[in-house]
């Protein structure tokens, strides 16, 4: 099939699944549609300074909520655009890397997680904890059910362990999979940037803004840059790479999106509806 037709099949399956996940998330944790809209505003706003993005724009909560409804409660502006694109990363040994450039980036942690393909098969058990969480945090919560992505949590735990991350303060920024505003909020929680249930508060308090505690998707993410599916994960890695090198100004033409002194970034990417998730930890290699 043509790319656009393939995209259509993927999108239709995804939209209803993610919509059902966020409806449950709102029921379990009180997440609101205004919080979802704030994610859209943040990412589309960041993208204004990213010439690689497809839909940079200044939005308001009313505009996001009144755009055409796709699958309740997600509107067109809550959802990324399926797209075409390409990205390239060159992997090399430490010695060779320094031959090619002065500022190579190291991959210090790789994690992967899976879950059932069918949303209805997701089990209801206990939260898989990160080092800075405890069982008491989640008493009475059935997990993952359909409100969270166990695969994302498993991937994060694996990657953090490999990279030696025991404290979320050591993360300077994150490029995560915001195919939907709701998947960004879910990813805040899966990645342990905040506790399960507090994802809505995280965006509301501005913690994930460019000047926030942990900037998330400074590039504008999938929501604003576009979603070239196979190339998306690499696209996220490239934006993270330029952040860590400190070369945002060189590549984007302005340094608005440059996180100062970014030494360690997380790249998080999905396949399916949280069916297969990978987390990579990238750090300065110089």
């Amino acid at each position, binding site marked *: 099939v043509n790319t656009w037709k393939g995209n259509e099949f993927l999108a239709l399956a995804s939209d209803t699944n993610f919509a059902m996940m966020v409806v449950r998330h709102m029921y379990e944790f009180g997440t609101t549609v205004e919080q979802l809209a704030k994610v859209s505003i943040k990412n589309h706003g960041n993208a204004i300074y990213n010439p690689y993005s497809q839909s940079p724009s200044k939005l308001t909560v009313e505009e996001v909520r009144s755009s055409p*409804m796709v*699958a309740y409660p997600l509107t067109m502006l809550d959802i990324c655009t399926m797209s075409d694109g390409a990205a390239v990363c060159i992997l090399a040994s430490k010695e060779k890397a320094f031959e090619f450039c002065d500022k190579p980036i190291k991959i210090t942690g790789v994690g992967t997680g899976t879950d059932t393909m069918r949303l209805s*098969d997701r089990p209801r058990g206990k939260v898989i904890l990160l080092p800075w969480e405890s069982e008491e945090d989640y008493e009475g919560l059935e997990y993952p059910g359909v409100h969270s992505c166990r695969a994302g949590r498993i991937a994060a735990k694996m990657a953090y362990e490999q990279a030696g991350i025991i404290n979320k303060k050591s993360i300077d920024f994150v490029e995560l999979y915001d195919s939907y505003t709701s998947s960004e909020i879910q990813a805040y929680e899966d990645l342990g940037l905040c506790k399960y249930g507090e994802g809505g508060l995280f965006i509301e308090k501005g913690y994930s803004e460019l000047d926030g505690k942990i900037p998330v998707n400074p590039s504008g993410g999938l929501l604003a840059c576009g979603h070239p599916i196979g190339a998306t994960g690499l696209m996220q890695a490239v934006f993270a790479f330029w952040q860590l090198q400190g070369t945002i100004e060189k590549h984007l033409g302005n340094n608005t999106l440059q996180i100062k002194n970014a030494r360690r970034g997380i790249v998080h990417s999905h396949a399916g509806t949280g069916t297969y998730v990978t987390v990579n930890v990238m750090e300065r290699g110089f």
Partner: protein
Amino acid sequence: MAKRKIKLPETEEGTILFNIDPIIIKQHYEIDYIHSYAQYTPFFAGLAKKKLLGTKCPKCNYTYATPKTHCMLCGNKTEWVELPKVGKVHTWTTCYFGSEEFLKETPFTLILVEFDGVDTFLLSRLIGVREEEIKIGMKVLAQFRRNLKFNPTDVYFIRY
């Protein structure tokens, strides 16, 4: 003697070209699949008898609302069990867009139905409830199509 011209018979139909340089032409293509429901046959046979069937693992007792022929936890073959016809809405959404097959039916509401004593959910449609009235936890009742299509849309749910 005049020779008779040999010619292929002509028709009056023309041909529509989408472009002349290069020539672009449309060719119609359709396919029929003959496909077996294999080990899932009991589920579809159940729909015909107005029964909702799931599967249960005899070893670990894990029960599936969406039938699985083998247990995803221990790999054992599962047995068919009858599911209750009344369940609860675990989550829902209303689709305003759909694939070609379902586009003319939008908007429609999809729900994940939670059944007592069953570990996984069933994805189905909720009919006859306005979006503002849908609440997670509300009770729903399975109904079956009379003129079967022998596909999963033969079962759907209404408010109980």
